[in-house]
């Protein structure tokens, strides 16, 4: 057992995947000698060489577009996009090419590509460095979208994403890169890639969250104990496809739900979850499904991000509201 950070978990996961399969390549900007701006790929180029850990030109469409070609050639590229706001030059390649190749070829071609994106705010960055664009990917058929929320998941989920024959958008909560946990690599992963996990059992209401909000929600659940509330926390882990079964089971048990994410309020994952729960669990609900999220504005300058991001108080306020019905 070793205590590792979330960033190190991904690093170790990448390393394991590269050792297991010589077709796995890692590519992106500054990922070689530097090890990425968050050091997630640290040491990989030294051990696997420049042909497998490819420092690319500064061209995002190029990163993804060439990954398409490499995948067609039988490789399994893992692409790093440096920050969330810089994925958009590659958006066309992702949604028109990566996502649709299997479909366009009537199942003959596969795109086993992982696109790693550090996402979310809370690190005091300048603009374009704090965004949560997961909805823009989750809406695209052919892509699978996941976010890891703790170091152990980071380690296993990146490996599961790499072995997926469908393309995976892999969101990494950048402000949690340094969170630590014990990892025992000899214990196989407890969850498949597309399964949500109940990270805290409770009876009064469920907090649904993923990525950076998992920690926030766990803290909120601890704080709610003082108010005599027993909250369940579900780390969704997968945004597309949503693990509806786990969501419905939890709602049927607690009868109240708050969805928490940094992405904007309207038409976000929370909207979909609220709609699904209404369709499937209407008679179980004691209150409407509420959302505690970012706002429908661009991500603000960092002096304002505390206001923008869901925090303990806003989550607890959401809990108050859902309990008030």
């Amino acid at each position, binding site marked *: 057992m070793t205590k590792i950070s979330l960033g190190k978990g991904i690093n170790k996961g990448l390393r394991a995947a590269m050792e297991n399969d010589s077709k796995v390549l890692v590519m992106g900007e500054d990922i070689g000698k530097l090890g990425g701006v968050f050091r997630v790929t640290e040491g990989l180029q030294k051990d696997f060489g420049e042909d497998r850990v490819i420092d690319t030109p500064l061209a995002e469409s190029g990163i993804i577009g060439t990954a398409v070609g490499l995948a067609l050639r039988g490789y399994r590229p893992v692409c790093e996009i440096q920050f969330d706001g810089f994925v958009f030059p590659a958006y066309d390649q992702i949604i028109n090419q990566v996502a649709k190749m299997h479909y366009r070829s009537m199942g003959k071609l596969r795109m086993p590509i992982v696109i790693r994106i550090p996402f979310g705010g809370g690190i005091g960055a300048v603009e374009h460095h704090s965004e949560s664009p997961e909805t823009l990917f989750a809406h695209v058929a052919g892509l699978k979208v996941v976010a890891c929320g703790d170091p152990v998941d980071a380690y296993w989920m990146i490996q599961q994403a790499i072995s997926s*024959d469908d393309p995976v958008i892999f969101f990494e909560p950048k402000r949690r890169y340094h969170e630590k946990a014990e990892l025992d690599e000899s214990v196989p992963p407890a969850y498949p890639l597309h399964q949500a996990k109940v990270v805290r059992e409770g009876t009064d209401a469920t907090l649904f969250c993923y990525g950076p909000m998992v920690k926030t929600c766990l803290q909120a659940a601890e704080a709610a104990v003082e108010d005599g509330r027993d909250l369940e926390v579900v780390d969704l882990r997968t945004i597309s496809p949503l693990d509806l079964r786990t969501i419905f089971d939890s709602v049927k048990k607690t009868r109240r739900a708050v969805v928490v994410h940094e992405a904007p309020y309207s038409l976000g994952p929370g909207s979909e979850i609220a709609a699904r729960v209404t369709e499937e669990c209407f008679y179980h609900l004691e209150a409407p499904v509420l959302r505690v999220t970012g706002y429908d504005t661009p991500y603000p300058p960092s002096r304002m991000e505390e206001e923008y991001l869901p925090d303990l108080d806003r989550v607890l306020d959401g809990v108050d509201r859902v309990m008030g019905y």
Partner: protein
Amino acid sequence: MSESVPGLAPEVFAPVEAPVSPPQASEEVEFVQLLTPEGERVEHPDFAFDLDDEAIKGFYRDMTIVRRIDTEATALQRQGELGLWASLLGQEAAQIGSGRALNAKDMVFPTYREHGVAYCQGVDPLNLLGLFRGVDQGAWDPRDNNFHLYTIVIGAQTLHATGYAMGQQRDHAVGDPDTGEATIAYFGDGASSQGDVNEAFIYASVFNAPVVFFCQNNQWAISEPIDRQTRIPLYQRAAGFGFPGVRVDGNDVLATYAVTQQALKRAREGSGPTLVEAYTYRMGAHTTSDDPTKYRLSEDLEYWKLKDPIERVKAYLARSAGVGQDFFAEVEAEADQVAAELRRGCLAMPDPTMTDFFQHAYVDMPDELAVQRDQYAAYAASFGADSEGEG
């Protein structure tokens, strides 16, 4: 005389040459040519055509059949059997010359107009129609023919080609001019303005990828003439990216063959990318939805008809190679046969079922999508067995 950029002080900025005009009937363009429009063989110091007259007969046959496929598809569109067709009329030499220069292990990444290259790679012409008829998005298996699916998003495939070529490198399939592998990416003059194409040039250059960029400069991107895409001849762009560029007479099948072959050899031996600009002309409309009379001069079309890629080969074969009339008649008959089969096949093409399209969205279908598929199936079935597939 050189001209300064409008609005910019000439003393600060180096003068830029006058923009390239749309094709002028009088203008002579510098390019590699091995067979003149009159059907005369000419030599070029750097490029030689190393095949015999039998091979030229083969090229003639290929071009004639491909033009016939194209004409038949256009007719099918006019009769409502295809939603759209993108004709290659006038570009047969560019496609057959480059396509025939490929080795079995080379890989092709086309746009939506490479019917001639598809033909060279052994793709059943009927399979080209599915996309335009709206029953599929490319029914061939790219792995069988080393011919990737058609790509509608302009320029996107040049990056795929470059990545694929980087894979060939990593597989150590590069290094020998004869047995090595190469990749070729097709795109148009309009595509040269796309970011992806320029990114592909950069990736190919810095990684020395074994890829040939084959630009069919047919002078038009729908209604936009070449001077709306570039102020310098396109092949000269390659120099700025650090690899060679060459312009070839795109209506000369001998020259396109020789130039592409040399570029592919360079790639296969590990010397990196080449940009080939095949200077040609789109004689038909951009697609069957387009009306070129709105933007194009009929004199230009008349001028380019005199440079027809097929006629010049026919003239050469008849006059210089002693090929008799029965050969041409034979090829015509074969082309008619191919066209008739294409028509028959097109009309018999079954509509797919919606269920197939649920099936192929993912390799590993999400449960939720399976639910939607079943809901669809139940809904469709609720109209009774007779109504399935109709409408």
